[in-house]
């Protein structure tokens, strides 16, 4: 890459990661003998069922959805912890889906992950300096121990800890500090792309604010690209440039964050937005939330959201909608939006059956 300073515009125009028709199925059938004896059918859980999105260099793309919607599976597919059943994951134009461990190794340096639970993702028997030095040793990034020590100290100070903290064990830290250690470890190999799977969900709000601020600072400093997974819409609004809303393994809507929150198009997005507690206490009118996420093993026919959707028609029950480009980077998979029969604006009535 040339040493010429890249401008904001050119930064955000390069696609870093592109996912197309990505699918991941899990076989959750009973054991073979049970199937034979009890005549139980094979059961396939379609955790991720055909999704497409692009992440541009330097931006934060978030996936949001309720539990079981497949957002964490997407994260794991991208870092190579799962192999895709079908579809492509292109990192800088090269398909990395289903690469072997050996082929994936050089990419691992550039693609790192931060996990949800800072209590489970740090080895309790290792000192913090060894935890952070592990990527340095694994990728041979420093020539000697002196270099490693210097770099570990530097990484600790990036995340607002002190080099002296390296001597301690993870249990000596609070949840927020542990998450800082996870971030320092992820940054150790100088990655370009970080997959953050619910990095603040296990933390208290005041600590969450510290971590979110830190992540924004680090992004600016190291030109990081984030894939951010969360169920918390307010956090997603705060951190994202663009957002994908997932429901039962598919993307319901993808849009720039400000557009998505100001003018949600898909009925599911609107329902999610209406569940957010109203801290401003304006007493705004909201769509009453109804129903639950169906069992993903036996998803509803047609559009998987139709049983909860106030606007569902016969077409929605039989035909699955495909994402349509509505312009200005907005993609929505909804027949109602296509047929222009979903009212825009904040107030929607619940379907009579669910009232």
């Amino acid at each position, binding site marked *: 890459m040339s040493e010429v300073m890249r401008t904001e515009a050119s930064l955000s125009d390069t696609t870093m990661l592109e996912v197309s028709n990505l699918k991941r199925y899990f076989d959750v059938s009973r054991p073979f003998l049970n199937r034979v004896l009890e005549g139980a059918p094979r059961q396939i859980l379609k955790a991720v069922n055909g999704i497409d999105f692009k992440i541009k260099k330097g931006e934060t793309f978030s996936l949001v959805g309720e*539990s079981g919607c497949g957002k964490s599976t997407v994260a794991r597919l991208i870092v190579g912890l799962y192999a895709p059943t079908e579809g492509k994951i292109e990192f800088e134009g090269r398909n990395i889906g289903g690469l072997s461990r050996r082929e994936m190794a050089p990419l691992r340096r550039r693609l790192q992950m931060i996990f949800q639970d800072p209590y489970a993702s740090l080895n309790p028997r290792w000192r913090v300096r060894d935890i952070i030095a592990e990527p340095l040793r694994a990728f041979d990034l420093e020539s000697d121990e002196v270099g490693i020590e210097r770099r570990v100290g530097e990484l600790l100070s990036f995340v607002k800890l002190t080099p002296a903290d390296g001597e301690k064990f993870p249990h000596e830290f609070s949840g927020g500090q542990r998450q800082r250690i996870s971030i320092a470890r992820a940054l150790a190999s100088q990655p370009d792309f970080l997959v953050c799977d619910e990095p603040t969900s296990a933390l*208290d*709000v005041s600590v969450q*604010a510290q971590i979110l601020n830190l992540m924004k600072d680090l992004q600016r400093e190291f030109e990081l690209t984030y894939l951010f997974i969360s169920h918390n819409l307010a956090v997603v609004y705060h951190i994202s440039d663009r957002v994908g809303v997932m429901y039962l393994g598919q993307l319901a809507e993808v849009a720039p964050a400000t557009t998505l929150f*100001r003018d949600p198009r898909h009925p599911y997005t609107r329902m999610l937005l209406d569940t957010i*507690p109203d801290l401003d206490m304006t007493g705004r009118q909201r769509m009453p939330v109804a129903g*639950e996420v169906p069992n993903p093993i036996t998803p509803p026919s047609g559009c998987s959201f139709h049983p909860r959707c106030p606007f569902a028609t016969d077409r929605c029950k039989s035909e699955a909608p495909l994402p349509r480009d509505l312009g200005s980077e907005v993609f929505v998979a909804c027949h109602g939006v296509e047929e222009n029969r979903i009212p825009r604006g904040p107030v929607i009535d619940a379907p009579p059956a669910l009232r």
Partner: protein
Amino acid sequence: MALLEVHDLVVEFPTRRGVLTAVDEISLHIDEGEVLGVVGESGAGKSMTGNAIIGLLEPPGRIARGEILLDGRRIDNLPYDQMRTIRGKEIGAIFQDPLTSLNPLYTVGEQLVETIQTHTDMTPTQARARALELLIEVGIPAPERRVDQYPHQFSGGMRQRVVIALALCVNPRLIVADEPTTALDVSIQAQIIALLKRLCSEHGTAVMLVTHDMGVIAETADRVAVMYAGRIAEVGPVKQVVKRARHPYTHGLMGSIPVIGHDADRLTQIEGAMPRLTDIPTGCAFNPRCPQATDRCLRDRPEPMPTEDGQVACWLFEKEAAHV
């Protein structure tokens, strides 16, 4: 007279390294039919306070000092059996994880019937009819079929509805709900909050809602008590606490919550973390994190001072408090 009064409650945990004070001289009250939100971060002592009220402190935790009065009657020193009749009949409890608060070996109906029969003299047939009524009330579809199913056959949200039905089944006067929606998805959370709110106002039940989620409190509570390091930092009407927080901790807490539509590039952050119980700072426990701390805050512990509509434990408000 308030329905529930707590005076100078102290909850302690004896450990090998000395006695830890998890709840340190807190006083609060809940009126008939009122929803009091108790909010704070992990380790603030909010669940301990709730558990002390329902008499379910886990040993070695114990109430060291203070009084808890229900309708003017002390309930903190009752023998186990007497407390057991109060719990369920007069105070209901809802916990965070609906799967652990239901018995997996009994059907939902059996559990409801048992609870109803323990506290009333209904016949089994009457109790079952009441159980069905309750399931309808909490919005469980096809209750005639669901009543004979086991908890594992219910989804998380439906289970929490059953737990609410159990808590409400003999019309208690107070419900202690400890993080009732934390384990649930956002869309389910909104439904459970709406349900709890509706049922409690219909039945005139008072609620002590313990949660870390300010959003839940803003939606539900009439008054809020903000806890920090085992003490109450601030109490006041929900609007006042959410919109015009007095205590610097509440102020920081509110600022650290990301809000949709507010285009702040950075969230206000409170540096540091809540102190561990083993090293609570002298003076005001919040002083190491407080941007407005003075020498006095390092030295003297502020007691809750009255304000026009609540209380605040912060030296900054001493003058204001003197005028009330």
